[in-house]
């Protein structure tokens, strides 16, 4: 029976536990993609005019805006709603991977089994990573299918590039949530810091370039690893992607290191 087979180890049990969240995230992004593409395809000109009248900083919040319905739809998907859904997913599950069992009180029973702490953390992180990749792939698919349905002319390659670049950026925040949670044994702290930094870096990256002297500061935020790449127009920026993955890996490593060296709670 599949239900029991998924209770075979920490990895499969975590897949079982988190599958619903992954499906919800994919469904949300499909819905958002269809909505954006459908609306922008039919009434995009209204929004283009509206955004054109906005101050530059405010308009930047909507991401890249090349004055086309296609550009506006992509901005909405990849600069606003896509990151929101993906960040919620990776920040939440990153923290849960680190301290979910500890805070739920199930860790003493789980660790009565011959498991290393790192085995649990790695298994759960891999599931979260697979989930994030699946959501990214599903986002690409959802956008491409929606574009086909609503007759919007989008480059599959550009959508794929943006999806991959976005994934790299959100992994930084997911790993930050994981690292802090693992270090301090607190999901609240991990989620709070990661989510707060995500929001802050979003606004810093979008608003600071308006002030010429501060434009370079915007490049120091994790968000710039996505927005600065301009992957919708230029394809995947491999260097920025590599930097994002390296930062995420370092944060994960830090979380793993501290988790193995602190007293467990409960």
């Amino acid at each position, binding site marked *: 029976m599949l*239900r029991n087979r998924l*209770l075979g180890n920490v990895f499969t049990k975590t897949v079982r536990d988190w599958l619903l969240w992954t499906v919800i995230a994919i469904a949300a992004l499909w819905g958002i993609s269809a909505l954006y593409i459908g609306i922008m395809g039919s009434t995009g000109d209204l929004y283009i005019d509206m955004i054109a009248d906005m101050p530059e900083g405010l308009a930047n919040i909507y991401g890249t805006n090349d004055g086309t319905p296609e550009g506006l739809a992509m901005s909405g998907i990849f600069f606003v709603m896509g990151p929101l859904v993906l960040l919620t997913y990776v920040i939440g599950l990153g923290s849960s991977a680190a301290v979910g069992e500890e805070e*739920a009180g*199930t860790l003493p*029973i789980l660790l*009565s089994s*011959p498991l290393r702490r790192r085995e649990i953390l790695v298994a759960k992180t891999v599931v979260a990573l697979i989930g994030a990749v699946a959501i990214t792939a599903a986002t690409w698919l959802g956008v491409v299918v929606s574009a086909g349905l609503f007759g919007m002319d989008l480059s599959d390659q550009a959508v794929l590039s943006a999806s991959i670049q976005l994934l790299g950026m959100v992994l930084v925040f997911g790993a930050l949530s994981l690292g802090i949670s693992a270090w301090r044994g607190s999901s609240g702290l991990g989620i709070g810091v990661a989510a707060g930094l995500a929001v802050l870096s979003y606004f810093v990256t979008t608003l600071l370039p308006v002030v010429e002297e501060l434009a370079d500061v915007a490049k120091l935020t994790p968000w710039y690893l996505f927005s600065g790449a301009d992957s919708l127009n230029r394809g995947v920026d491999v260097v920025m992607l590599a930097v994002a993955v390296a930062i995420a890996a370092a944060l994960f490593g830090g979380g793993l290191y501290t988790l193995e060296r602190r007293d467990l709670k409960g």
Partner: protein
Amino acid sequence: MTTTEGAPPIKTEGLTKHYGDVKALVDLDLEVNTGEVFGFLGPNGAGKTTTIRSLLHFVFPTSGTATVLGMDVATNAVEIRSRVAYMPSEYSLYPKLTGAENLTYLANLRGGMDKAYVTSLAERLEVDLTRKVSDLSTGNKQKVGLIQAFMSKSELVVLDEPSTGLDPLMQQELQAMIREVRDDGRTVFLSSHSLAEVERVADRVGILRSGHLVVVERVDALKRKAIRRIDLEFDEPVEAAVFEGTDGVRSIEARGNTVVVSFEGSVTALLRTALDHNVVNVNSREADLEQIFLDYYHGNGNDAP
């Protein structure tokens, strides 16, 4: 295998754990023997759970060493846990899974389960494993936790406050299960704040108070050490002074023809003194073990630091 053949199931030397300024455990020297039920007694907050969590490497000792089944807990935690069953005092099961699914998962992590044995344990403890854990009462959740600890037939079973939430009948069943483990040559480390629970099954007890191990004794030896009371009825009034200086006598109270004597250890000297008079009746009261433990708990025991 890194175990040492014939090594004690649990051995600690100078095991100390501080949480900031709080000294949860201080210089614990303890040795548990193979095939015994060792009762680890102490009031809440005495350091019992900290000891267990140190042994399982959930927390890192501030100083000292500990071995379990001959293996250093600092370097062999996983190997140790593969051979030790553990029931924590505070834990949660997975609420969305049934009792059976919880046990299946935990058994899979150990390499499998003896389903027939699990079923028999469930029948003994009268728990329905087909129900979701979130629908179970506290007592029934505790039973699932107990099955988890017993189902692996590990050579060392560590139970931390295992009877919490169990009714008296189930407590008796649990005690029977603990005895069966011992009869099977395996070892049980039973942590509890309940004297009654430990007294019924333990061969030896260690009493912990404020992080200090104040005594380790066999239960029967501890009883012998207890201060008991004896009522001696004579055919005429006898003065209390008659018993002063008698070996083991702690206090004397004369009430008419009756003398009530509190004493410790052997009663022989007391009876010899009494037999110098015409004894009409003797009423010996059972050692008040509860009082011994309270004495140790409160620092009145002879070995208390």
